[in-house]
């Protein structure tokens, strides 16, 4: 069982009527809403939070790539990863990840990942990302039907670039190179590869099964909404003789830990609303353009739309997006897991076992949450939650996080204590290292 700290790097000072004024929070909202110096302050906060995550036993610190949105201001995840690679010790540098179709030539991905693996001493998780339509198609102008082909050409080139000992020529449909000869190259002989999905493309499932990549269902929609799709994924993997090890499955979950349930609501509710109102305001015109999902996937997935609505109706989604649910409604519907450490442990155990998740991506920061709350959330998770869930899947090997990180975290991460109580005073917490 592994835990990777992650949050969207969201601009925290958007106007209250952002969602109403702009029909999309991605691709086209004006940058005049933001101040670059405040953007910089936000970046520094996230670097501090992830450094803290490294100190309290998180297995990884995770970064992602998005473009042209205040919801996630990390167009180059490798830049944030570089800050972390040089200032953390144990955690994996989990990059999920470079959108392969958007790097020209794709060897740049291979080079930068190699740099980061060297700098971190072999702690890289290399994500290969197809990219949301907002990013790949609308921000970067890639034709909807070319994204997957470009991705595949890049994927093959990256693997060759990491492993072929002599310079080689590459005659691809989208890239031609005469001399591919990488300096540097990764520390790890087999860099773990993650490919996120969750949007319903069967082609992605075929790819992760074929290459034994870790798959990620990264939707922030929680257990109930995701269960039909995730169950279908595991059935598909089983049917195609893929690896059924839970460590090949990643899942994001917003967590709001506090000393009491009432405090959780007080500390996190406004930030949860901010996140939903502003960071997930994709814009219907940009979120699923025709041509992006193949006819094969449309047919395959069409059936599961109804199943996904059993606990999360279209009306629920609209209310959630507008920030109109109560705090405990967001929790009941699975968007967040909130409350005391004991409650969060129970809910996560249920999530992890029901969906067979070996790589949980807890999200202890959301929206415009204040740094000190996110930091306390991170500490509470690291000391009071994670150690009590590490028994899950402990009998199964994990091929999808770096061995160096596994060894260091096994040695250094907080351990459970003999007795647990509802609230733990700060001075009673076990020292990490």
């Amino acid at each position, binding site marked *: 069982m592994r835990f990777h700290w992650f949050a969207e790097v969201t601009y925290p000072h958007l106007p209250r009527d952002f969602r109403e004024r702009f029909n999309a929070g991605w691709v086209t909202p004006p940058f005049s809403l933001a101040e670059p110096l405040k953007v910089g302050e936000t970046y520094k906060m996230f670097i501090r939070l992830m450094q803290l995550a490294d100190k309290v036993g998180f297995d990884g610190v995770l970064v992602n790539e998005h473009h042209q949105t205040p919801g996630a201001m990390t167009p180059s995840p490798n830049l944030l990863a570089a800050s972390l690679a040089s200032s953390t010790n144990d955690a994996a540098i989990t990059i999920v990840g470079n959108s392969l179709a958007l790097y020209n030539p794709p060897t740049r991905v291979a080079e930068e990942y190699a740099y980061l693996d060297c700098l971190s001493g072999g702690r890289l998780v290399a994500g290969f990302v197809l990219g949301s339509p907002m990013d790949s198609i609308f921000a970067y102008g890639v*034709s909807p039907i070319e994204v997957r082909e470009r991705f595949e050409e890049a994927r093959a080139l990256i693997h060759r670039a990491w492993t072929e000992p002599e310079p080689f020529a590459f005659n691809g449909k989208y890239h031609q190179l005469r001399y591919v000869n990488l300096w540097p190259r990764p520390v790890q002989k087999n860099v773990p590869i993650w490919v996120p999905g969750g949007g319903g493309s069967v082609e992605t499932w075929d790819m992760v099964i074929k290459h034994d990549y870790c798959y990620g269902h990264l939707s922030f929609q929680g257990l109930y909404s995701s269960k039909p799709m995730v169950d279908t994924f595991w059935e598909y993997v089983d049917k195609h003789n893929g690896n059924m090890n839970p460590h090949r499955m990643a899942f994001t979950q917003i967590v709001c830990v506090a000393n009491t349930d009432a405090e959780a609501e007080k500390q996190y509710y406004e930030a949860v609303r901010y996140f939903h109102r502003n960071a997930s305001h994709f814009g219907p015109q940009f979120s699923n353009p025709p041509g992006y999902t193949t006819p094969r996937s449309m047919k395959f997935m*069409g059936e599961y*739309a109804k199943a996904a609505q059993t606990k999360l109706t279209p009306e629920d989604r609209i209310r959630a997006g507008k920030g109109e649910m109560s705090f405990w409604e967001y929790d009941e519907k699975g968007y967040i897991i909130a409350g005391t450490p004991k409650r969060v442990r129970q809910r996560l155990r249920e999530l992890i076992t029901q969906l067979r998740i070996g790589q949980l991506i807890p999200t202890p920061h959301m929206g415009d949450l204040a740094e000190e709350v996110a930091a306390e959330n991170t500490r509470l998770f690291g000391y009071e939650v994670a150690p009590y869930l590490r028994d899950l899947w402990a009998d199964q090997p994990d091929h999808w996080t770096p061995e160096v990180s596994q060894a260091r975290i096994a040695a250094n991460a907080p351990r459970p204590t003999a007795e647990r109580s509802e609230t733990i005073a700060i001075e009673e917490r076990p020292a990490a290292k």
Partner: protein
Amino acid sequence: MRKTQTLCGGKFSVEMEVAGRGEPLLFLHGFSGLMAENPFLDELGRDFQVFAPHLPGFGDSTGAELIDDVIDAALFYHELMDELKIPSANIVAHSMGAMLAAELATLDVHRARKLVLAAPMGLWLDEHPIPDLFATQFFELPALLFHDPKSPMAQAMTSSSTLPSLLGAMSANIENTKRYGMSSKFLYPLPYRGLRKRAYRIQAPTLVLMGESDRLVPRAYGKAFTSIIANAKEEVVAKSGHMLMYEQQADFCKAVTKFLKA
């Protein structure tokens, strides 16, 4: 009448509407494809033998994966014309079809006897950007494509028949996905593939026909096309948007026939 033509030993299978009798007229449809009913083809068929192929990716035609760019598309049409034994013909083309028609006429000057480019795509003017079809939702199409968005025709032509979609938002039916996928090869991110530098080769007398209220391809594109094609003139169809041959069928057919027979 529906006809099928195979090309290149079966690599392409081309569904076509064929109508009328007379000199050959090849009709190239746009990004929306041919409709279930296309009465303008029958009206043109009074004076011409009309061939209206479904471009691979549209209708039941196959071989879309073999056409990646405007060169591939132009050569596809050359091959089709040879197989149909109409190596040179009047070419009437609409919207995205006009981009492809212009390209096939530049690559082989003998292919087009005369050329009609109706509401043509194929150029880009920064001052008159063409709206992004790939970010346009169904309910926005009537206003974009028709002079009278509220007409029964406009409403009928732009209603979405949808399969349930996991994402629940604007995901279209599968036919639509194939059409847009094919069109994206020519139209996305901007509907320009370099025609400006090649158009000097077009020798056929050319009519650029613009819809008066076309909100997809603005009127300025009429002059943009006539200014780069040697023997070209512009005419306007009144009370028509982008879908001229459907919204103002009689005026469209009259203008085309008059030009081709002159």
